[in-house]
């Protein structure tokens, strides 16, 4: 086989793959990036339409994207079509695998919530005895968070909250509305901290691998991006045992191709990366590959309330509006009897409650909704899910995707720990609303099925031993030293924070290590 002209082959162009390309190409390393999806021209790909101009009047085609609760008739075409790339699960244990195949991946569409993990996540076992610690601590990753946040231009407020470390922020100096002050004070009385939402501002409020990482990598002249390359397997040299490239199929023609490189980096998103390794039959001497799937459970519109003083448009200027983020506050210094770990709250005031919350119909409903317009309080609960060995994925050899690649079978469900946590969250929120004098219209503790958060993690976990983990502390395969997995599959715990900043920082850290190992000739 001819010597490859590429040093590193990167699979995936989202946050993790993009950061690997960004870091490696700046060090003069020649990279080839493959992505299963096409490049997207947002101007050409999207057109303004009224709902009545759509075939199903905005309801969406019944049955299409039944697992993607985020899908609407407007955005249905941005998600991966399950009929083209199927997966399976027990009907009694639904899993919502939400995917994007475009250059930029899911970083095109994320909510841009940008948090650091703390040692409550990295050293979780030390804290409560459950599960495993990461092989790294907060101090190992902090220097990389410091570099990632300025690239993504994270706006936030430095509040010195131990469980949510401050970062290199564009300082959020905005004030609080009177309603928010009341809610924050009620929380503080109960030992619940609050901070401003931490958000990647990016450029033009667009914060993606697509506009923040890939352009700089391309500008070095060291990156080649090949879209529409559906990777089927990672190939291994039988003599050396090292990865030597990948076989992929061109998305539209299905022509099979082989690309080679000195090092292979997998950043195809947690479950696609795991599926690729399982289908390749590599990197699994531990038997752990595919296990410990976890995410964060989400309860949206968990408590819906109305702020009486803001009814009928009577709220004076500055009385209502805005929101905040309450990081995990349970099981930090005390131990709750009903569950381990904790949850975060993403709350806001000033919205308008949905019609379903009003026990009315007809003209009376219209009047009530008009009265409560802009007077609402709502909150999303995001809870930590315990990583468990029996929460797993495997290959279903009986089901193939449109390219003949075996599909994934997902087996996971939430447990009493998560359900108890959800109950506590709702009771706490309701108590806070009552303390503020707000009228609770609706409450529920029903989380979406696993996967909904689009924060799937852990199926290719890192660790200190090749017997119990797939990767070492540098995101490097224990079995194949020139193979790295840099996405969320490497996580050991997931916390209650959005994981993107941690994925980006891990990828940057792994890439710097990789570059140094390549310079030394170790890989």
């Amino acid at each position: 086989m001819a010597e490859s002209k590429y040093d590193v082959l990167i699979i995936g162009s989202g946050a993790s793959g993009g950061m690997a390309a960004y870091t490696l190409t700046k060090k003069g390393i020649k990279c080839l990036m493959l992505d299963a999806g096409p490049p997207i021209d947002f101007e050409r790909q999207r057109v303004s339409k009224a709902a009545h101009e759509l075939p199903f009047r905005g309801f969406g085609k019944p049955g299409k994207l039944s697992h993607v609760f985020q899908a609407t008739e407007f955005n249905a075409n941005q998600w991966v079509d399950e009929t083209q790339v199927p997966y399976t699960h027990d009907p009694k244990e639904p899993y919502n695998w939400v995917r994007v195949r475009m250059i930029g991946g899911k970083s095109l569409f994320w909510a841009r919530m940008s948090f650091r993990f703390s040692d409550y996540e990295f050293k979780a076992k030390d804290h409560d005895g459950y599960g495993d610690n990461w092989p790294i601590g907060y101090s190992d990753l902090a220097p990389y968070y410091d570099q990632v946040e300025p690239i993504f231009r994270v706006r936030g407020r430095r509040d010195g909250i131990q469980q949510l470390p401050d970062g290199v922020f564009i300082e959020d100096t905005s004030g609080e509305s009177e309603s928010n002050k009341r809610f924050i004070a009620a929380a503080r009385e109960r030992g619940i901290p609050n901070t401003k939402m931490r958000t990647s501002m990016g450029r033009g409020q667009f914060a993606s691998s697509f506009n923040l990482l890939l352009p700089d990598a391309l500008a070095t002249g060291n990156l080649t991006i090949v879209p529409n390359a559906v990777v089927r397997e990672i190939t291994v040299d039988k003599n050396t045992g090292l990865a030597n490239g990948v076989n992929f199929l061109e998305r539209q023609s299905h022509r099979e191709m082989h690309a080679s490189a000195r090092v292979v980096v997998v950043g195809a998103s947690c479950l696609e990366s795991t599926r690729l390794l399982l289908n390749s039959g590599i990197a699994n001497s531990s038997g752990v590959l595919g296990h410990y799937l976890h995410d964060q459970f989400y309860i949206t519109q968990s408590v819906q309330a109305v702020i009486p003083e803001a009814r009928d448009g009577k709220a004076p200027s500055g009385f209502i509006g805005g929101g905040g983020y309450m990081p995990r506050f349970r099981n930090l210094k005390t131990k709750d009897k009903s569950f381990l770990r904790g949850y975060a709250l993403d709350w806001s005031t000033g919205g308008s409650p949905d019609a379903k919350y009003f026990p009315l119909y007809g003209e009376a409903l219209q009047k009530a909704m008009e009265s409560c317009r802009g007077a609402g309080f709502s909150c999303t609960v995001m809870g930590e899910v315990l990583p468990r060995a029996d929460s797993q994925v495997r290959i279903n050899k009986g089901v193939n995707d449109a390219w003949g690649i075996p599909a994934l079978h997902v087996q996971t469900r939430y447990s009493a720990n998560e359900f108890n946590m959800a109950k506590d969250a709702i009771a706490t929120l309701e108590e806070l609303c009552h303390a503020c004098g707000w009228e609770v219209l609706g409450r529920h503790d029903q989380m979406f099925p696993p996967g909904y958060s689009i924060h799937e993690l852990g199926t290719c976990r890192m660790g200190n031993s090749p017997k119990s983990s797939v990767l070492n502390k540098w995101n490097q395969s224990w079995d194949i030293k020139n193979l790295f997995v840099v996405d969320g599959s490497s996580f050991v715990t997931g916390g209650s924070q959005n994981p993107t900043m941690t994925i980006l920082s891990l990828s940057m850290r792994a890439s710097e290590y990789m570059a140094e190992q390549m310079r030394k000739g170790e890989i």
Partner: protein
Amino acid sequence: MKRRRFIQALAATPTAPALLAQAPPAPSVAKTIPNSGNDAALLYATPDAAAETVLHFFTAQQFAALRKLSDLLSPPVNGAPGSLEAKAPEFLDFLLSQSSADRQQLYRIGLDGLNAQAKRRFNKLFADIDAGQAEMLLASLREPWTYDAPSDPVAAMLRAAKDDVRRATLNSREWNLAAAAGRTRGGGGGLYWLPID
């Protein structure tokens, strides 16, 4: 490749909330498209502007009940079109014809149940009862909201219809026109993703 060239395709900010939320309404009923070879642009209309839905799904009695129910749930208010003007029942007949068997049963059994209740209590079909009588049969809609749908099939259908009729009305061409004329708020619209080749 220069950064500017790489990102020049980006005209908007596709963040998750922006994409999942509804954008400001597109005002057009008919739209102007670029035309090659002619100076004049061609104008197109949507089917709803020019034709009526052919009904397939509900029986005549079920559909009559749905029309009555739709009018009760979303009547015209303060110049905004009601569900009947918005042809919400006709649209729902189409939508249900495409929906899952569970959803179809929910509506069929619920509407049949509503007719049966009206017959039993007032010796009339639901379509023929008066407002006071209807208020009695729709009592479940005045119960506080719970996450789980009611176990009673009529109450479950009423809850689904409250949402569906309202949405079909707000997303209608007629509502969009009223919003454009300043007679009501909103009018569903947004950026539509074209299919990827």
